[in-house]
């Protein structure tokens, strides 16, 4: 009995010591994956994921607390990129991706209250007080933050119009 306990204890101590020494020589810096994840996110700080901004979302992803599908404006492409970066496999067939969208102002309802332009994270909405606002297409990320702010429901999201340059061949029908 005593010899058994002694043997196990000795072995534990010896192996533990060896591992402790090894750990000192093989120490690794924590993976700077957080920054890489943040660079993949859209960076529009729209907050639709439930985190304050993209940096916080990236931190949550790195900690494994958030799903790679957390970013609605990013759609499938970003979820895929995040999954690849994190080295995990996810089924993305369920991720809704209606393609990029764009905010538009219904000019006949807009009262020119300026609330939407204050929340726009990319300064994509222009217009002075009491003037009808307008959305700069190139700057709008389609995050939808302005939609909720509009008191008269004059703002809505529409899919980007398809043009010759943007048209994509459909996938052939499955055989």
């Amino acid at each position, binding site marked *: 009995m005593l010899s058994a306990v002694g043997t196990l204890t000795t072995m534990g101590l010896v192996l533990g010591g060896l591992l402790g020494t090894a750990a000192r020589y093989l120490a690794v810096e924590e993976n700077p994956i957080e920054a890489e994840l943040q660079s993949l996110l*859209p960076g529009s700080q729209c907050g639709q994921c439930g985190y304050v901004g993209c940096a916080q979302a990236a931190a949550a992803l790195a900690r494994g607390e958030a799903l790679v599908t957390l970013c609605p404006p990013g759609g499938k492409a970003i979820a895929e990129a995040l999954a690849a970066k994190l080295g995990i496999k996810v089924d993305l067939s369920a991720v809704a991706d209606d393609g990029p969208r764009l905010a538009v102002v219904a000019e006949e309802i807009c009262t020119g209250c300026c609330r939407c332009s204050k929340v726009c*994270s990319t*300064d994509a909405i222009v217009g002075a007080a009491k003037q009808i606002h307008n959305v700069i297409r190139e700057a709008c990320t389609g995050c939808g933050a302005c939609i909720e702010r509009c008191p008269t429901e004059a703002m809505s999201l529409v899919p980007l119009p398809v043009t010759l340059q943007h048209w*994509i*061949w459909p996938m*052939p029908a499955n*055989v």
Partner: protein
Amino acid sequence: MGYFERIFKEPRWGVHPDDHKRPAADAALRLLPPPARVYMPLSQHVGGAARPIVLVGQQVHKGQLLAEAQGNISAPIHAPVSGKVSSIGEVTAPHASGLGFGAIVIDSDFADRWIDTDPVADPFSLSPEEITRRTAAAGVVGLGGATFPSALKFSLGKRLAVGTLIVNGGECEPYLSSDDRIMRDSADQVVDGVRIVMHAIGARVALVGIEDNKPEAIAAMRKAAAAYPEVRIRPVPSRYPMGSDKQLIQALTGKEVPADARAAEVGVLVHNVSTCAAVHQAVRLGRPLVERIVTVNGGAVARPGNIFVPLGTQVDELLAFCGLNEAPSRLILGGPMMGTLLAHGRVPLVKGVSGIIAFDAREAAVPRAGPCVRCGSCTKACPMGLLPLEMAAHIRSGDLAGAVDFSLTDCIACGCCAYVCPSHIPLVQYFSHAKGELAARERTRLRSEAAKRLAEARLIRLERESREKAEAAARRQAERKAAKALAAASASQAQAVVT
């Protein structure tokens, strides 16, 4: 060609479809009478759309500038008939999507009055830069189908000191014979154009590659080039896609264009024979590109052949001119291997269209696609050495990165793989879909990068605003304090004065 050549000289890639070129290629060139109305699209070339400079209701002559080039890569367009600009709006584009694009509509006055042209008796006395300028002003673009503005290629060739001009007379697409026709009928013009292009880019030698299924064109070109030893006529084996730049360069010079590089970087530049003829017209006669030869062919066409057509003519009008045996079961713009399926014929002809094919029901029959049996036919046929079956399998399962890993980006969409596939899998459509999807992702990435910059700019702005606000507040407070102190001081002074 003997058996020895067949076994050892024939390229290992490519396919050999029935060419169906005759009898259309042998029929004499016909002229289409000026149509009552032409639709001149603003975007008939790679790059930015041209910007209209005419007004609705304005009278224009044939060859008059309608819209000027806009941006670094662009080309102007000119009136193909004389008449009145009736409107500027959208027409259906000659594109598989069936979407619309901008065009200038001209009602013809049937007079066909040309503008005053500026012919040059001796183009070789002009500087290369001047030739390039005149070619650009005439709106000449690659007429083989690539529609890249030719003048830009001239300057590129000049800058990279290209020594060899390759003239593409391959015309490997079945059914098409417009290049064949232009070489047979106007070999002198083609050779003159070749020499002008050589002068413009400073090339020492021109190799004219012509597939050996066009003996008449080879003979005509040899005769026309007899006086110019620097223009060499080189028959090449007829094998699709011999008319693709990279394959023709390899067949004629043995050089391979590196991936992601331009042909000019290996010292060659490729121009189509029709483009060379257009350069001849533009520089020697001063005539802008407003007409071209179009092959009309296919089982549904009653009198197939090559027609000289003003640009902007509707496909329907051209088909009506040639007559139809039956309603076409499939209407194709370009050749059957790479051409665009048209939903209807109310589409204008543009600079890059070398043919219209109207298939009858038998030609248009499509066998049902089956599962891939991994037979490897596509791999053997691919002129780029790709593995189409693997790329398609990855794309089908949604793994675009996997497809890119199999060099999807090197695919030239020649259609050899889908042509030989015994399961009739629409491989090219898989690749087109994936390329479009990748381009869209790239756009999204650029967009989100821009958004990121804007968001950062906004943060800086907000910070600056709040800082300025704070500073302003501080300043105001200081002023107020100072004013107060001043008031107090003056009050005490006043008091002092009073006391």
